[in-house]
């Protein structure tokens, strides 16, 4: 069973994304902030990380940078409401696979997630 990690400071997002992917046979781990996400990844690398950019404490880009620093190879897709070119550029240079814009369309989410993992 593929496993993805949803990092988002919104409880609703975490909860409903778990429900959404469970129905599609994907196990969802959730983290409410960056450090929790890093801890979880350290315990076991998921197949894909959906990483919110703007959170309290560490930002998504910080988490991504930390992962690269620790040389943890994990697929990451950024989720963000901003269209800031710089953030997009920086995450791409840090190896993120893509960018999902908030508020998302679930079909898009499904397409992106499924393109990176095999359920």
């Amino acid at each position, binding site marked *: 069973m593929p496993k993805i990690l949803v990092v988002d400071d919104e409880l609703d*997002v975490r909860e409903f994304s778990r429900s959404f992917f469970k129905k599609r046979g994907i196990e969802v781990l959730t983290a409410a902030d960056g450090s929790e996400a890093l801890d979880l990844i350290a315990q076991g690398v998921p197949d894909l990380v959906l990483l919110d950019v703007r959170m309290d404490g560490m930002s998504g880009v910080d988490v991504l940078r930390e992962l690269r620093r620790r040389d943890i190879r994990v697929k990451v897709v950024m989720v963000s*409401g901003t269209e800031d070119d710089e953030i997009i550029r920086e995450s791409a240079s840090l190896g993120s696979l893509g960018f999902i814009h*908030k*508020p998302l*369309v*679930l079909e898009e989410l499904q397409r992106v997630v499924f393109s990176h993992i095999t359920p």
Partner: protein
Amino acid sequence: MIAGLRFLSMISFWAFGAGINFIASVALGLLVYFRDRRNEKHISFGLFTLSVGAWSLCYFLWQISHARAEALFWCRALMAGAVFIPICYLHHILSFLNRAKKFRWLIVASYVLAGILSYFCFTKLAVLNVRPRMLFRYWPTAGEIFLPILLIWLFYAGWSVVELLRAMLDPADQNRRRQAGYLLLATVIGWGGAATNYPLWFNIQVLPVGNIFISLYIVIVAYAIIRYRMLDLRIAFTRAGIFVVVYALVLGLPYLLIYKYPKEHLWALTAMAFLATVGPFIYFYLNRKAEEKLLKEQRRYQATLIQASAGMGRIKDLRKLLKLIVRILTRAVRVEHSAVYVFDKARQTYLLGAVLSSRDPAAVPETFPVNLALAEALIKTRKPVVADEERKKWEDLGKKDESLICRELSALRGELVVPSMIENRLVGFVVLGQKRSGKVFSTDELSVFTILANQAALAIENALFYDDVKRTQEQLFKAEKMATIGTMADGLSHQINNRLHAMGFIAGDMQDTLAIKRQLFDTPALKEIEQELTYALTRLQDNVARGGEVVQGLMKYTRKGGEGQAPCDIDKVFNAAYEMVQFKIKVGQMKILKAYDIPSIPMVHGNFTQLQEVFFNLIDNAYDAMMQRKTEGKDPDYKAVLSVNILPVGEQVRIIFADNGIGVKDQDRHKLFTPFFTTKASAKKGTGLGLYVIRKIIEELHGGRVEVESTYLSGTTMTLTLAVAKELM
């Protein structure tokens, strides 16, 4: 009557000439003197005409003398007056040329010398005797000091001529040169004429034919003094007239009394004392009354003008101020029209600020360039330019058509142009048309206008400054508002986005659940519930998506900019935007006219993507406006047309989008650029951020300008001004 004829037959041609000289010199002397009694030029001219008058009077009396002793007496008296003429003349020339101060002691000494000489004129040293010469029964023979007197006379005359020549060669003052020219001409004619008297004194057989030229000489001199000063003749004549009448009364009445009652000396003396005491009072009283009557109108409006000029400083609205100035002038001075021009820093030209015409709307130019001759003349002289004087000046030179100033004055339809100066800057100028009465402007009026215009300059400057401050303040306030919105938008959009994101997730997940469990809804009632829920969730997600668009717009606003600017091909930007916009609107519904010629348009300096977004919004807005008109207008023949033009203007390019859509109502126009303000009929279509983003991109990120012109039910024209890309060498 018979006595009068007998008197006329008695006098010869020479007596007649001398009489004319006397009248002319006294009249013009009084005229000039009473024009300005404190001015040395006028005083010295008065003295000069007095001496000429005394000389002419004696000449006249000598010519009509019947007895030898009488003729000799008047000849000597004549000389006593004549010795004053040269020094008075020199004094006048020197003061006229503003050089009298330099020779103050010499002038005083000369007067003293003339006084001494005039005493000797009554002895036989100057006039030895009188005897018949040529046509004259009594002609004087020169005494011992006559020749020295003539030499002194020549010396002063020569000096005067040198002074005048000097002034004529001074290139600095055109006016002075011309006046000096007149004076020199007068000198040659006058002195030449007078000189014809003297050969016969030495028994040289020349008739004094030139004597009558003295009058001509006086007229020319008076003319030279007053010609360019626009003398109000009525006032001077009235003053001189009152003076003559009052003093004739004061001096004449006692003589009349003595003549009638030779025995009653006491009465005559008492009358004389009384009249001499009250004479000046009567004179001043009459003079004041006369001036009040003559200058009634002038005084009335001068008070108005001075009052108004004091109040002008309080008006801070420039438009209102300028309107007030022209209204005061046109009404109070009763001119045909008046206009005010104010220097515009941005456009480096004088702009018509206000105009008021008492008849038809005056066709005066809207702008007046800075580099014209008139503006230069105003700055140089700081004095009003009078069209009449300018015309006369150039007519004299026979080059009226060549005068730039005359041409400019007629373009302005101005009879009088008054500069508004602050220090050396010409802030603006006031143009006055002809007086409705047809009268000329007097010197007094000119000084009142000058005060008014300079006061106006201060008020204009004040108003401009106030405008500037107000604008700066508005800009600051706006910038602050924007900054606040910017900061708020950043946090707000994040928060809203997260909410929307969560809502989208929840709705989507529920929809998902419904889709997966569809088979469970197996009764018609349940099926209906399932459909209802699915529809509601779809709508919910739709709303989430649209909320997202609003937030996207806000994010664009908060985006920092300026980076990534390069030369952009405007046509390419337009095409890219057009391609994009096709996904949103049905472009087939409207016609797009490209009114520009592609190879001739320059590249602009900008960010391609941002400009593309601007164009996208412009096309989108135009489309919506035109569709709204189509729907609301109910005109079956309506054709939606968006015309796009690109005009290079110097270092800038103007990009013009003109649609024939619904337009903007007057009351909405000022809100156009306010974020979240939308007039779009289908509110669901507009985020209210389109124009806001356009302005942000064009004005803040590109340093350009966005202008909107719109008429409700007729269409909107959006004009963008952007800088031309500098060629990279």
